[in-house]
Each structure stands twice: as structure tokens, then as C-alpha cells.
């Protein structure tokens, strides 16, 4: 093993004199001696075959050229959502979360030196509880899909039951992740069909499947097809059957829609990406979970509580840690340690900027632009919305040809026209899911309808 010397840019500050002095203090002759515990036969006797080293300028060039191979929301006008949404992110958000004190901190184990993170998380918990209409919230999960999986495990613990019902209008990624997580604890995940006309979860089919084995029922709000589910109607029999009613909600929509907590949900989970987190090709995003007070000790992950110091000053600490893996080990509510605190901070700052009125204005504007888009499309093309249920900012169109074909034609015209639903729903072979957010302008919407008209007529 040889001591490596001439490497550009390594971010290690040691001069040769430092190394010598440190080795002398330790009482060894070489760095190699410090690795004496590693058996000879497993030591790597050649340099790693990895790329680099590159100087900063070269790293810029490398990634610039890869980034240039992508076509972003600035290159084509996007009408695609299906679980990740393009929204305006106030400049303030990036500026604040880039501060080194936030960016380079770790989990706030030492409360007195981490009041910034702890208080921000307490604010996040408050905002999520407010939006969802539930009592308590925790401090962020990886994404909406894993948040749903944690809710499933919570429901199985609370009810001691082993079966979970999921609406077929629940995001396919979320359904898949539930199935994956169900494999370990041996839970079963069964689907509830969609009412083909309204696009909402079939209430009669749900009631039929409810029995004493059902731990939880998952309904998305608004659902994968954009439909605003009648949560109160769906959840009433769920609670009667002793199962937990879990809503998977887009938190932005909750600025306009009645909070799930008021419609009978016991737990609300979701992805807070729409509130200040960049698209970033799918992550990092941030999951959230809110619940009724009764389940607070069953929540996974970090929870921040208010307390005081010796002089009575208010402060915040990580609390209810007896649920967590570092204390409870195999009996913990979850194995979560690192989560998405920085993304939760971005959400907290975004919600602070939006405020009480702004969140409603933004949610309403999203819905209005989506409704306007549908009107315009229906007026100028032969395309019609498939479902009749009320919708928020996403809707399903039958485009009459495989959606992939139409998407390709629309790309040539400068649009990403939506999501090819056949990728995950064989029953919708020629269907396109269109999402419209506040970033779309009236002019873009009109050009989109025109382009669709041309593309469907094949001209």
C-alpha cells in the first residue's frame, strides 16, 4: 500500500509536514501501518477503475454536456404530471435552503445547537396538520409512496389485521411500493376497482370487500386520474369496519379541497413535492404523514416537540424517541433515520410565502387553468374527457391512438402532452393524462389545444 501524494483537488488539508508530525504523534512510521487490521488478501493492490480526477472546470463541462442532452420544462411546454408537478418555486426557497447551516447539518440530535432545524420542523408539522385537517404530523418521509407504505405498516400495527385495500385509482407507483413493503410482514394488498364512468373509486365494490381482516383502505385525493374522490362516502364504511381510512393527498390541492381529516381520514400521507421542491427527474422529494392524536406514538420517523430550558425559554427537541430505531431497535415503528429534512424545509418556506390566502389562490388557479384547458380542448378538438367526476388539475383524454404515438407527434410541435396511461393501465390503451398547473399561460394552453387538434387529425 503506497501513500498517495500528487492528486489535484482532494479536499484534504494535510501538508507533508502535517502528515509526518501526526504519524510521529501516533507512533507509527507510515499511513500503511494504520491499515494493519485489513487482511493482506483483501487489500486492493491497484487503483480503482473509476473516472476522474477532474478539476472543477472539467466537472462543469462533463455535467453540462449531460444536462444538455435532456429536454426540460423550458425546452418543451409540459402538460405532464402523474405524480410530479411543475410549479413556480420562489427564488427565496433555494436561497434559504442553500445556507450552509441548514445544508451541512445532520439530524438535530444536539438540540441546543440545532434550534434552527428543530423549529423549522415544528413549523412543518403544524402546516401539514393544518392542511390535512388532522391533529399531528411527523417530520418527513422519503416520498409519497414510502409514506403510504409506512402508513400501511402503522395500520397493521394498530389494527393487528393483515389485509389492505387500495383503490385502483391510487398512483401505480404507490400501489407497487405498498406491495413491495407488504412482502416482509406478509400483508396482502387487494385492489378496489374504479367506477369507469366517474373515474372515482367504486364505493359499492369497496363496501363489498370490507371485512374484519382489513387494516386500512387507501384512496388518493385527488386520485391518479385527477378526480376528487368523495372521501366521506368512501371512508364511512371503512371506519365502521374498524379499518383505518388513509388518504393519499396532493398537499397543494388541500388549499382548495376540504381537508381529508374533516372527511373521515385517520391518516393522510402524500408527497409534498408540489410545494417548493424541484422536479429533479423524480427526487429528492419529501413524503409527509399526518394522523389522529390517538396514533401519535405509532408514527414513524422524526417528531419534534416543544419544551423549555432551565430558564423557561421555549425550545424544540426531537421527541417520542422511544418509537425510533436507535432506542427500540427491532421493535421500532420504522427504520427511518436520514429522511428529507432539507426538502421539508423548502416546503415550510414555500408555505410561509404562500400563506393562508396564497395557498387557496394557488390551488384554485391550478384548478381553473386545468378546467380552462379542458374547455379549450373540447371546443377545438374531437377529444373529450373520459370521466365525469369532479377534477382538480389533471384529467384523462381518450386520444384514439396509442398515447405514445400522439406524444411523439406533440413533441415535434414543442409539447410534452401528458402521461401515456397505458404504461400502467392496460384498460386505458389510448389514453393520455393531462396535467395543468399555474405555470401554464393562456397562450400556451391555446397553442396546446391547436396542436392537439392537428396531431389527432394526423395532419
Amino acid at each position: 500500500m503506497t501513500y498517495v501524494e500528487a492528486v489535484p483537488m482532494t479536499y484534504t488539508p494535510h501538508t507533508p509536514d502535517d502528515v509526518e508530525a501526526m504519524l510521529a504523534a501516533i507512533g507509527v512510521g507510515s499511513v500503511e501501518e494504520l491499515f494493519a487490521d485489513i487482511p493482506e488478501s483483501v487489500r486492493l493492490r491497484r487503483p480503482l477503475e473509476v473516472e476522474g480526477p477532474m478539476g472543477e472546470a472539467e466537472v462543469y463541462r462533463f455535467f453540462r454536456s449531460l444536462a444538455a442532452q435532456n429536454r426540460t420544462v423550458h425546452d418543451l411546454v409540459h402538460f405532464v404530471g402523474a405524480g410530479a408537478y411543475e410549479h413556480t418555486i420562489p427564488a427565496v426557497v433555494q436561497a434559504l435552503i442553500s445556507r450552509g447551516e441548514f445544508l451541512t447539518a445532520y439530524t438535530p440530535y444536539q438540540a441546543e445547537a440545532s434550534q434552527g432545524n428543530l423549529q423549522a420542523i415544528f413549523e412543518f408539522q403544524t402546516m401539514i396538520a393544518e392542511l390535512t385537517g388532522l391533529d399531528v404530523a411527523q417530520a418527513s418521509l422519503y416520498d409519497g409512496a414510502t409514506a403510504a407504505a409506512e402508513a400501511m405498516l402503522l395500520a397493521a400495527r394498530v389494527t393487528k389485521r393483515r389485509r389492505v385495500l387500495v383503490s385502483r385509482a391510487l398512483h401505480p407507483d404507490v400501489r407497487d411500493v405498498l406491495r413491495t413493503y407488504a412482502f416482509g410482514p406478509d400483508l396482502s394488498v387487494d385492489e378496489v376497482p374504479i367506477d369507469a364512468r366517474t373515474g372515482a373509486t367504486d364505493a359499492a365494490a369497496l363496501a363489498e370487500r370490507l371485512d374484519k381482516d382489513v387494516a386500512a383502505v387507501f384512496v388518493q385525493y385527488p386520485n391518479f386520474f385527477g378526480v376528487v374522490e368523495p372521501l366521506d362516502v368512501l371512508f364511512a364504511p371503512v371506519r365502521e369496519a374498524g379499518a383505518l381510512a388513509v388518504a393519499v393527498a396532493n398537499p397543494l390541492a388541500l388549499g382548495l379541497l376540504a381537508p381529508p381529516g374533516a372527511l373521515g381520514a385517520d391518516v393522510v400521507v402524500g408527497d409534498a413535492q408540489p410545494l417548493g421542491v424541484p422536479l429533479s427527474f423524480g427526487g429528492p422529494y419529501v413524503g409527509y404523514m399526518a394522523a389522529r392524536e390517538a396514533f401519535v406514538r405509532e408514527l414513524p420517523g422524526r417528531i419534534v416537540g416543544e419544551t423549555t430550558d432551565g430558564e423557561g425559554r421555549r425550545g424544540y427537541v426531537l421527541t417520542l424517541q422511544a418509537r425510533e430505531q436507535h432506542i427500540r431497535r427491532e421493535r421500532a415503528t420504522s427504520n427511518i433515520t436520514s429522511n428529507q429534512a432539507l426538502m421539508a424545509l423548502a416546503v415550510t418556506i414555500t408555505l410561509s410565502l404562500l400563506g393562508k390566502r396564497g395557498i387557496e389562490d394557488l390551488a384554485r388557479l391550478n384548478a381553473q387553468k386545468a378546467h380552462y384547458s379542458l374547455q379549450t380542448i373540447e371546443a377545438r378538438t374531437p377529444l373529450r374527457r373520459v370521466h365525469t367526476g369532479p377534477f382538480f388539475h389533471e384529467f384523462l383524454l381518450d386520444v384514439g391512438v396509442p398515447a405514445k404515438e400522439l406524444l411523439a407527434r406533440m413533441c415535434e410541435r414543442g409539447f410534452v402532452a401528458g402521461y401515456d396511461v397505458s404504461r400502467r393501465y392496460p384498460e386505458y390503451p389510448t389514453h393520455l393524462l393531462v396535467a395543468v398547473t399555474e405555470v401554464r399561460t393562456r397562450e400556451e394552453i391555446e397553442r396546446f389545444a391547436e396542436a392537439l387538434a392537428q396531431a389527432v387529425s394526423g395532419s
Partner: protein
Amino acid sequence: MKLIFERSVPGRRAIEFLDAPSFADVPLDIPEAYVRKAPPELPEVSELEVVRHYTALSQRNFGVDTGFYPLGSCTMKYNPRILEVVASFEGFRDLHPNAPEELVQGALAVLAGLERNLREILGMDAVSLLPAAGSHGELLGLMLVRAYFAERGEQRDVVLVPDSAHGTNPASAAMAGFRAVTLPSNSRGRLDLEALRRALAEHEGRVAALMLTNPNTLGLFEDQILEIAERVHEAGALLYMDGANLNALLGVARPGDMGFDIVHVNVHKTLGTPHGGGGPGAGPVGVKGFLADYLPVPRVVRDGERFTLVEEAPKSVGRIRSFAGSFGVLVKAYAYILLHGPEGLRRVAERAVLNANYLFSLLKDTFAAPYPGPVMHEFVLSGKNVKAETGVRTLDVAKRLLDYGFHPPTIYFPLIVEEALMIEPTETEAKETLDAFAAALRAIVDEARRDPERVRSAPHTTPVGRLDDVKAARRPVLRYRTPERAQ
């Protein structure tokens, strides 16, 4: 400090939507029952107030950029700023995960390139970049184990975990449907080989895996790793490596070469992406070839000149999260590898180990040192001598360190060391910093002798004093309520 809600003034706003009035006439056919009746109680503040509030909060927070952060097993190294810059390129940041594949070829090339480099660093045949954190990687790893034995028709339900392991190991085992059985460490701080032999015999045919952290949480290399691997494999079980401490091994030794079948790497530790106050990180998992078919979807596959995301794989455990991973974090990890290159990565390990041994040499007479060096990238001391002599606990010492401007080390972990202090300096710290930190700890022990109350009542210089954890847990206050609603 005030909460953002307490700065609220009715009617004040930071954001208005200028084109909202022109869409106001568009009717929404949402039934009344599903329209929100009262707005959520979010703050009503101006943009400047938001900036000042969160800037003030940041100033009440300690990060690596603020000062030395020797939190053991967390590898709080300096994060080169260029990583942030490249991850925020528009071509990455503003890229939709559901855009057609032709539009995201650059992103898929990033994922494929990082995968290739990680395979080499880990000495593994296949890598999944999907896990969102180290513990998520552990969970995936154990799901792979479960899927592997399920296909072979073997009923193995036991996972062995050393008593020095991170709490995530047994917690992940439980989530994946296994029973965790604890193995003791020997007097040298390593896994007790005899205990391993007994456990494998006692649970013959039932052990699915041994989860081993290497170097372990005492900062010691498991020098009997080859024998351990042999025993585990003889018993038909798999060997999992918790890669939390991989920083010590970069370019020096590879998990795959030591006999590990599965390993996760915490990119926010080893590959220097910032920890973000607890996340986001990422926890890619590497496996030997015989486990590759079980890896989760989607997987990036090269198809001639283009990349494609494969969503269907018959033996796959399925999907473990949405979309194709924490892409933004993975870009940073890739950039970190490129900046360092083969020799730079090896130097990371060498300097991390040098720093740890140097700091250990400065402190091993001040505190009890339960295990002799050389250590790897971190070490564990015990404050039991200080406690016995002065009544001052390790917790008190840690809090007093805050007054000296240092973030405390990890304390009371691993559980097998009394009054533990687990210190990890990392390779990015200069000798002067280590000298100053050691001097501070010695000064605190001195204070503990002369004025123990001063130490026990620390910290004295932070925005709040020592906080009452018991009160917080007994009657949890987990959210703010406006005064009217608190009534």
C-alpha cells in the same frame, strides 16, 4: 424565538398570482362538500419577513460549514460547493420524471455512469441507485435476501446482528419480516466468532443473513472477516455489509472482495453529499451477480446508443419508491467521485484514518480507551473515568463542547460502551482543528474537576440552555395553535 405563525398579520402577503383574475370566471364543478370551508392557519407574512425568519433560524443551527462536527458514524465531511452547482443545472433540476425517455437521455446516462463507478468501488456486480437513505438500502438488501430464499423454497427467518450495530439493522430486519438475533462482541471489540458459530448452529437452516458493519461502530476493522464470511456461507446464509463506515475503505479494500454479498453505501457520508439537517441522502445497494435479478425496478439499461428504464423484471422485489431515485443527490455523488478519481478516493480513506488515529492519540489518556488502536476512521472513548472521578457525565461533556464552538461527537452509542463518545473527524479537517478540539475536551475534563456544576449546567452560550426532553415527551406539544384555537 418567535414561530413564523407568531409573525402573522392578517391580510399581509408574500405572493400574489397576477394572472389569477383573468381565470376567475372559469367555473369549477367541485361539489360544495369537497371545497375547503376555512383556510388553513398558515402565516400571513411578507417575503422579507420570511427571509429574515429563516435566516435567523439558520443562525441557530450548527453545520459543517459552521464548525467541526465530529459526529461518529455520520461522516460529516466538507461538501464541495461545486456539487450543489452541478446538481442545480436546469437540465437536471427542471427535468420531469414522466417525460418521454428520448428527452431524458442525459439523466439516464448520469445514473448509468454512477452505477458503473459504484460497482467498481464496492467490488460488486450490480447496483441499484433507488434507495433513498442508508436504512432504506438496508431494507432493500433484506428484501433481496427474502426474495432469494423464497425462490429457493428455504424458510429462513433469522437475521444475525452484532450488539454494536446501528439500530437501523434490527429495525430493517423486522420490517423485512425477519427476527433479529443479537450477537455479542468479543473483548477486542470485534464480532465474537465463537458466538457466531453457536448462533449458526442453534438456528441451523434458519439464518438468512448476518448484517455486519465494517469497519464496525467502534471504528475497528473486522479482521476476521474472511473466517466470518466462510462460516456464514457454509451455513447457507448471506453476508450483508452496512456501509455506513465505508469512508475508511475507499480504494483500500472492497466489500465484494471480502465476501459480502450485499452492501449499501450512504452517499451522504462516503460520497460527500450534504446531510441537509437529516436528509436527503441516498443509499445505493450493490450485490453479487446471483442477486441481480431481484433488484428493484426501474433499472437503467443501455440499449445500443440509448438508455432505457426497464420497469418489468420477473424476479424483482418490485418498486421501493417512486420514480428513478433521488436523482439530485445522485448527481452530487457522481460529481464527488469525478472530482477525486481513483487516487483521490484512496486518499480520502487514508487521511480519514490518519486523522482519527491522530485525534485518538491526543485523547486516549484523557478518557478511557476501551479498545487499543490503530483505529479506522473513527474511535470510541468512554467517559466512565471522568464520571467516576467528578460526577460529570458524557452528556454534560458533550453539552459543554457547544460552548467551545464544537459540535459534540455521537454519545451513548454504541450501546456496549459505557458513557460512550464516538468521534469521527473525517479527512477534510486540518491538524489545527483536531488539536483545538482535543484541547477543548481536556479543558472540559479539567473544569469537571474544578467546577463540575459549570459543566453539568452547560451549554451556556447557545440560544437556549439545556432543554427538558422529559417534559417534551410527557405531554407532547407537536404543533402550534393560534391563541383563539388553543382555547
